[in-house]
């Protein structure tokens, strides 16, 4: 191979991957500019804080924002403790070769790969048709449905299950950054394992739990498929007042406004602005997670 030929090949081998990397940046910028340009004009205070009006052709999206908020709060209250405990088990208690640990790790990986729509089916089949209907039969026995129908509780639990691997991975990563010396020092001072975990490991991995929680919220706020038939509603005149109520949600609102609103062209602004709100929300969440993780990684080096 001549030197020039090699140089040309080298330039190609370098520039093609660089081009693709640049392409990703361009795609992201293009999608974002389109959505910002389309939605910025309609993004007013009244839009954020008002309810849909005139048969969803005017007004705001406050109920959808509120519903999304409630969804992720209930989801986190359930998901973050379970995820944290699983991560503590995996990194502190289980020996990596034990069958149980490998089983759980496999389960977490599988859970991460299950399609969102299958979670929706599971929520319908398990939470609504099995647990909910079972509760109705046991507590009410009047032949009517109270819990055996879509509501915010079942939607949140379904979403908690979907985001569980996100929490586990983030917390485990944080626990790994707690130096071994700290643990050993604690144990050497006579503290038991649980005391060490409680007083040394957990306080040092609070950031990780926060990151996990935030990432889970970001993921949960953006997923629509699991709530399609476990609780999201097209339109509600009232905010959800209890766990057995249905709710409106940002992502679902985008979907129905883009495909089922009475006048698709007239509501273009609402659609773009709703998309922008959801996008800004997930960005804010993701960036705070990135920031926290960055601080965490810095700790390992120093």
């Amino acid at each position, binding site marked *: 191979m001549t030197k020039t030929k090699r140089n040309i090949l080298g330039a190609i081998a370098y520039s093609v991957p660089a081009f693709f990397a640049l392409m990703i940046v361009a795609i992201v910028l293009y999608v974002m500019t389109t959505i910002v340009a389309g939605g910025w004009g309609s993004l007013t205070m009244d839009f954020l804080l008002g309810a849909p009006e005139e*048969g969803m052709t005017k007004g705001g999206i406050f109920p959808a924002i509120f519903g999304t908020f409630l969804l992720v709060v209930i989801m986190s209250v359930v998901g973050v403790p379970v995820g944290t405990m699983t991560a503590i088990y995996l990194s502190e208690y289980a020996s990596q070769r034990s069958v149980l640990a490998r089983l759980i790790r496999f389960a977490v990986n599988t859970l991460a790969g299950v399609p969102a729509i299958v979670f929706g089916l599971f929520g319908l089949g398990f939470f609504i048709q099995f647990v909910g209907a079972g509760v109705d039969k046991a507590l009410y026995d009047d032949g009517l*449905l109270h819990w055996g*129908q879509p509501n915010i509780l079942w939607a949140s639990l379904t979403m908690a299950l979907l985001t569980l691997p996100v929490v586990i991975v983030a917390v485990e990563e944080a626990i790994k950054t707690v130096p071994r010396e700290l643990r050993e020092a604690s144990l050497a001072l006579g503290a038991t394992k649980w005391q060490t975990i409680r007083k040394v490991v957990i306080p040092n991995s609070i950031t990780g739990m926060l990151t996990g929680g935030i990432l889970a919220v970001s993921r949960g706020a953006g997923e629509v498929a699991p709530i399609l038939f476990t609780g999201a509603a*097209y*339109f509600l005149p009232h905010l959800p007042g209890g766990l057995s109520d249905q709710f409106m949600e940002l992502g679902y609102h985008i979907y*129905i406004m883009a*495909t*089922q609103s009475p*006048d698709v*062209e007239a509501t273009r602004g609402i659609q773009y602005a709703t998309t922008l709100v959801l996008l800004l929300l997930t960005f804010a969440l993701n960036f705070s997670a990135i920031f926290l993780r960055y601080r965490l990684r810095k700790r390992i080096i120093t």
Partner: protein
Amino acid sequence: MKRFIATLLLFTFTPSLFAADVITVKGSDTMVILAQRWAELYMKKNPNVTIQVTGGGSGTGISALINGTTDICNASRPMKPGEKQKLKHRFSSLGVEIKTAKDGIALYVHEKNPVKELTVQQIKDIYTGKITNWKQVGGSDARIILYSRENNSGTYVYFKENVLDDEDYAPSCQNMPGTAALVNAVSKDPNGIGYGGAAYAKGIRDVAVKADEGAPAMMPTAENVKSGQYPITRFLYMYVKSKPTGAMKEYIDWILSEEGQSIVTKVGYFPLR
């Protein structure tokens, strides 16, 4: 900000605190906007009644009626024997049917499409795949692109049973999740055809429909739909478990009154008479 507080107050205090009667309405997405308008106006006039409206689809609404989770069910198609059987099993009543409005199913094409009228038979042949080129119905030489509603909608079922004579849609038919998506698709597709409730959008045009070759071509106007001369007309229904009484009776009577029926026109449907 004032708007916000008003919204919050509305949301927090309306449910059943001051209201003596709560009526829940659930069902057809086609009718959810209409039902919402009715409820809004009625509540404004009768502050002691709360009416909660949710969509979900005709099937969902009828299931809710059967399960006892709703007082009134909206449906853009009549109840099926199987559903009536379930209702009877539960409440030993077949339920009561109330016709609340009429809906003319329009056929839309792109505004530049030269085809101005179609017979019901031609529409059937187009949607079952027997006619595939606009040339065959007097248009330009281009393939017909079919748009339909999703197969869970009352409109899909109505169109299939009444226009297609229960034959299957051609497989190339694209199913859109809502009328809006369908209208939007046709407005961007010079060779597209779609069907649905009356829609006013840029880029599309209604086709006049003839019941048969000799019949006059009819546009889906209020007059033609009301008189039943437009061939593809259907009713929009409400179902309740038993003959309405009390607050519910007053509400339904109001819907059937002139005032209630005048709202029907505003959301793109047609009054009963």
